[in-house]
């Protein structure tokens, strides 16, 4: 199927949280980590894709040109990829396709977002641009309320409760506590989550991913170029990619099943030749706790209507659940959610799991297959899934 196997040659992230650094500075730091054990970017990188949600945070477009220059590249193809929160995995998809085709040997996929620049109001405004202007934006919906429309119906149609959603937040905080890359490296408990204020019922503050500054970088390369990084030789490759869109308006969709995410994951599985039960670790796009429940179903880890059990010990879950570990990084909820960088941060976590370089407290033993699902717009308006394998 593929001419060239695309390998993950190097990864880096930086500053998931609030910082005085600007987007390009965050990128510089992520690149510094990724290229610490290899040649300079100018020696290998043939093209650059930048996942970035909004020009409103820093009043800056042309991120391809800017960031290429900031890592020592000029006269290479470089462009911004836009797909709201899916921009990062879309950038990764372009890098993978370029290397697969044999057209390029090494492509840098990166993501940058300086979300704290305009405060909560700025982020609310910037994110609302992802909704249909004609009927949704003009009705005053917001990101939490759009997802709450899905969550409300999910709770109505399944046996899930707000306590089940709270458990997902607690689980992801516990994972983030063991992740030095995470924004919230601290645990929480169910009562704290349930006592937090409603942002858009049934979603509360602690069901929501935070506003985050951050950057992530993933170098995708042929085996030959990837061998120039590190000392152990390339070991993780991108075995499958799936991407697809759904309606921009939430009203027209299935409110309790993210069909676009199911399509993206299914395609990625087919390309990689794996089944959901083969997946050891998965980073799912928990912009809100309810998303993790719905994505667990869409990715085939949970039976329909039972994804809300994702934070339960495996023995307490319904029959039909796989043994997949979900969002070992802490997820968007606790690792942080710098919109355009999130998909690449997911890839970084899967890479660390498959290379055995995650911190011991969150390392899944003998992980050989990982999935990331990155959504943009509201839920599966656009979804990208990648399967990484050793």
């Amino acid at each position, binding site marked *: 199927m593929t001419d060239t196997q695309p390998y993950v040659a190097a990864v880096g992230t930086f500053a998931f949280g609030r910082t005085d650094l600007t987007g390009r500075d965050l990128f510089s730091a992520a690149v510094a980590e990724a290229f610490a054990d290899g040649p300079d970017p100018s020696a290998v990188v043939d093209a650059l894709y930048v996942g970035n949600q909004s020009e409103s945070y820093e009043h800056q477009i042309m991120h391809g040109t800017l960031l290429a220059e900031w890592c020592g590249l000029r006269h290479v193809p470089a462009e911004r990829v836009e797909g709201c929160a899916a921009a990062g995995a879309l950038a990764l998809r372009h890098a993978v396709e370029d290397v697969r085709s044999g057209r390029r040997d090494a492509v840098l996929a990166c993501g940058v977002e300086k979300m704290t620049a305009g405060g909560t109001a700025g982020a609310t405004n910037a994110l609302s641009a992802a909704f249909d202007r004609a009927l949704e934006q003009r009705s005053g919906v917001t990101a939490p309320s759009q997802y709450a429309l899905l969550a*409300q119906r999910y709770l109505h149609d399944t046996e899930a409760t707000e306590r089940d959603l709270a458990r997902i937040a607690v689980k992801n905080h516990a994972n983030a506590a063991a992740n030095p890359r995470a924004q919230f490296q601290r645990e929480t408990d169910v009562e704290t989550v349930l006592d937090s204020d409603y942002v858009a019922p049934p979603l509360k503050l602690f069901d929501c991913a935070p506003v985050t500054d951050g950057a992530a970088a993933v170098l995708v390369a042929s085996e030959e170029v990837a061998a120039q990084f590190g000392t152990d030789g390339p070991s993780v490759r991108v075995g499958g990619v799936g991407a697809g869109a759904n309606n921009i308006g939430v009203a027209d969709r299935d409110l309790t099943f993210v069909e676009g995410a199911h399509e993206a994951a299914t395609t990625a599985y087919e390309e990689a030749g794996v089944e959901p039960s083969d997946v050891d670790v998965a980073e799912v796009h928990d912009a809100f706790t309810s998303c993790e429940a719905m994505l667990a179903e869409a990715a085939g880890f949970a039976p329909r209507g039972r994804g809300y059990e994702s934070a339960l010990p495996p023995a307490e879950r319904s029959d039909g659940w796989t043994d997949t570990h979900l969002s070992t990084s802490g997820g968007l909820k606790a690792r942080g959610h710098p919109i355009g960088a999130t998909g690449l941060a997911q890839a970084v976590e899967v890479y660390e799991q498959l290379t055995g370089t995650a911190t011991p407290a969150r390392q899944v033993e003998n992980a050989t297959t990982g999935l990331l699902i990155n959504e943009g717009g509201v839920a599966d308006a656009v979804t990208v899934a990648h399967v990484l394998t050793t």
Partner: protein
Amino acid sequence: MTDHTDTPTAPLARDDVTADSPFTLPGFFTALADGDLLAAVCEDCGKRLIPPRPACYACGGRNLHVESQPKTGTVVSYTEVRTPPPALADRAPYTVAIVELDSGARLTGRVTVPYAEASIEMPVRLVARAPDDDEREMALSYEADWPIHEFEPV
């Protein structure tokens, strides 16, 4: 309901895409301001699409005609916006919902009652009104006179 049987079907020729056509947003909102909520109906699969557009996402067909919609329906899901877009700060909290009209078409809109008084399956009616000052503030130039639609309990 207005009879649209003589209305041109979805624009397939470049010159048919005009601000008068109900298949464009200016045409859709002009009709809504006159009290007419329009959908495009796919003649191939029967899907109803609000606002009207030139192709059916359900089947890919481009054989659509415009149809006036009933204004009554029921709430499919709902929530409360507590942290609104800055322009609507003085309006919050407010309720928003996805409503399925009696025709089967769905759309999102604000609801005129507090969250605690709304529920799934609640019967509602769509009303359209001129935008208030705060809504005009968030409008783009060409949207300034487009009506705001809301749902009120029946």
